């Protein structure tokens, strides 16, 4: 939309009956003017009018002021370009539905938008993302950004998005209950059992077993931990012995009582709360948990440590990569697209990702930001996460993933709930995936 809705520019809101009367004509006149302006700007925009670039993203939480100041600096550096940031609902599925229906309809009322790493290949293949290879060549992208994030932003050797910030699965543990972070699954179980014996009522290991995308993340991590190879690009490979061992291990944590059955209905927040209340020894979750458990008033403040996920062999485990990329709408008109590319490059710059890390605790997608002295000083937790972020692995990078994710979730859920054996569930899920790709 080229022009703001009238209510945003109505001079002042009437506060009493008298002002309603006195303002009535003014308001009406303004509306007429705005309507006229809207009509005119549809047909021909004056050459010197500022170009408005619309940026849609999910809420960053915390205080929006810091981000706004940062955008204001972009306006200073780019006179003639206005950025309007529009916030989407928080639920990632809902945001995806909005983008899918808008982009499918050829919407050009937004230019830059934030997409989840798992949608990127799908959106790129659909032709909805502008090809940014000319501005962000593959070589530079892969050199400057974390490998998994760069991978997620690319499809068939072209760049379709630029990593904004990342997320990685990691293990939290109670420093007061266990001697150190466990390196192997066996160690995790041994430490947990010892702590559970000393402190009855405490659960061993919390993870996310509800039927949703988080379960897929837990599954892929357990599979990698048992030695599952990364699937070749463009493929979803579920029926490997290692993946099966990983799924069996997840199910085993419930059978053996290492994990409480509440895990089966838990997403991130349920497990975070239980852990924060001091009711668990170990927790698999994302980095956002750190700020919460270390907040003043948290019962476990100062008692929590974090580490890479354990593996079967004792090597540091790879966490699943989450996070967001910035893309440019392929339907945006040429003039706005150039400004949009400048905005993407500004928002994914070293300074911007540093700012995001300091004010919003988002993990930078750029490698160099982790060495920044300011980050080391003011957000040591984030700086310390570099090795984990650098070795994070993406879920299968294929345009089919979002379509297949739903079927995979159902089968994984059946396996962890004990309805089917791990092998059977994976076999069924693989058949769904193959069927989808063939059809």
């Amino acid at each position, binding site marked *: 939309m080229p022009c703001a809705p009238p209510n945003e520019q109505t001079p002042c809101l009437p506060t009493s009956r008298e002002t309603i009367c006195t303002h009535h004509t003014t308001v009406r006149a303004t509306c007429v003017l705005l309507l006229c302006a809207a009509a005119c700007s549809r047909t021909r925009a004056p050459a010197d009018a500022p170009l408005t670039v619309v940026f849609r993203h999910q809420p960053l939480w915390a205080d929006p002021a810091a981000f706004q100041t940062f955008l204001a600096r972009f306006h200073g550096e780019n006179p003639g370009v206005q950025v309007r940031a529009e916030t989407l609902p928080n639920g990632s599925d809902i945001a995806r539905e909005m983008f899918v229906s808008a982009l499918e309809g050829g919407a050009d009322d937004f230019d830059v938008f934030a997409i989840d790493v798992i949608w990127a290949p799908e959106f790129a293949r659909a032709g909805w993302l502008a090809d940014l290879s000319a501005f962000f060549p593959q070589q530079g992208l892969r050199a400057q950004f974390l490998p998994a994030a760069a991978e997620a932003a690319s499809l068939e050797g072209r760049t379709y998005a630029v990593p904004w910030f990342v997320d990685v699965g990691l293990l939290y543990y109670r420093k007061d209950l266990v001697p150190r972070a466990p390196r192997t699954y066996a160690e995790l179980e041994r430490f947990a059992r010892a702590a559970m014996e000393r402190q009855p009522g405490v659960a061993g290991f919390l993870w996310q077993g509800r039927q949703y995308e988080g379960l897929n993340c837990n599954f892929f991590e357990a599979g990698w931990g048992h030695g599952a190879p990364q699937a070749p690009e463009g493929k979803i490979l579920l029926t490997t012995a290692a993946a099966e061992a990983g799924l069996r291990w997840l199910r085993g944590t419930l059978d053996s009582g290492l994990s409480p*059955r509440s895990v089966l209905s838990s997403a991130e927040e349920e497990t975070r709360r239980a852990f924060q209340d001091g009711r668990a020894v170990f927790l698999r979750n994302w980095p956002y948990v750190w700020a919460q458990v270390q907040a003043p008033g948290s019962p476990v403040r100062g008692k929590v440590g974090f580490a890479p996920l354990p593996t079967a062999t004792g090597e540091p485990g790879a966490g699943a990569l989450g996070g967001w990329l910035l893309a440019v709408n392929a339907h945006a008109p040429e003039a706005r697209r150039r400004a949009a590319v400048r905005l993407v490059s500004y928002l994914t710059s070293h300074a911007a990702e540093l700012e995001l890390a300091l004010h919003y605790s988002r993990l930078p997608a750029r490698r160099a930001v982790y060495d920044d002295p300011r980050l080391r000083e003011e957000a040591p937790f984030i700086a310390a996460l570099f090795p984990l972020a650098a070795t994070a692995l993406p879920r299968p990078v294929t345009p089919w993933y979002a379509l297949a994710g739903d079927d995979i979730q159902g089968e994984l859920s059946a396996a962890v709930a004990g309805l089917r054996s791990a092998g059977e569930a994976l076999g069924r899920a693989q058949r769904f995936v193959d069927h989808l790709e063939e059809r």
Partner: protein
Amino acid sequence: MNARRQPLIMVAPAAALLCGVALLPVLAAIWISLHRSILVFQERRFLGLSNYQFLLGDERFWSALATTAWFTAVAVAAELILGLWVALLLQRGGGIFRAAILLPWAIPTAVSARLWAWLFNADYGLLHRLVPGIDWLGSPRAALHAAILVDVWKTTPFVALILLAGLQAIPEEVVKAARVDGARPFRLFLSITLPLLRPAILLALLFRTLDAFRVFDAIYVLTEGGPANSTETLSIYAFKTLMRSGDFGYGSALSVATFACVLVLGLGFLRVLGTRR
């Protein structure tokens, strides 16, 4: 001639509206369901009936249909029995109870489902503390019944209200006459109240069955269809296929199948309602 045409003219706007908002979308859905249409890949080609052929062999569809049928049968039966009991109590009670009982019905489903999700929570939930043996949302067997409980809690007041209206329409004289003839309360209930309440009961049954068959919001908030798709109803399956997977062809086929089921149910009820009135 004019007298004959006038009613038609009067009905025309309503008919046109119904056509526009009900019939056309259904026809459009049927048309899409004959295609392979995957939104994100901008793929669209005519397939004929092959989506329906796949549907017939789709285990997930049949399990969703069974889940929906079970949900509908159990929830509606419980709502009718409880609703009748509440209505009988309310017939004697004062206005404040009538208002208070509507509270669950007035709360948006998404909000009450969220509330119940916390009650069911396996770490903190009140229900979990009261009945520690049951893993409400985590076990494939219990989860659907947890959803039924939420639905019953929410819609019993609605049923009670319809039945209360029916109760109040029963003529006083009939009841008095029965009393004079020496009918005891239970006999009175069986021979007078229930038969005369029949239209109201059928109406409540019709509303609730059609509604329960399309259940979406409560289950979506509680479990999203999990664990192991054990709470996946037809609407949830269709929604996931349409909106999450973006498979519009097959998603539309699922929607059309749901529509057909509801249509059959509705026609069946209308038949029963229409014959004895």
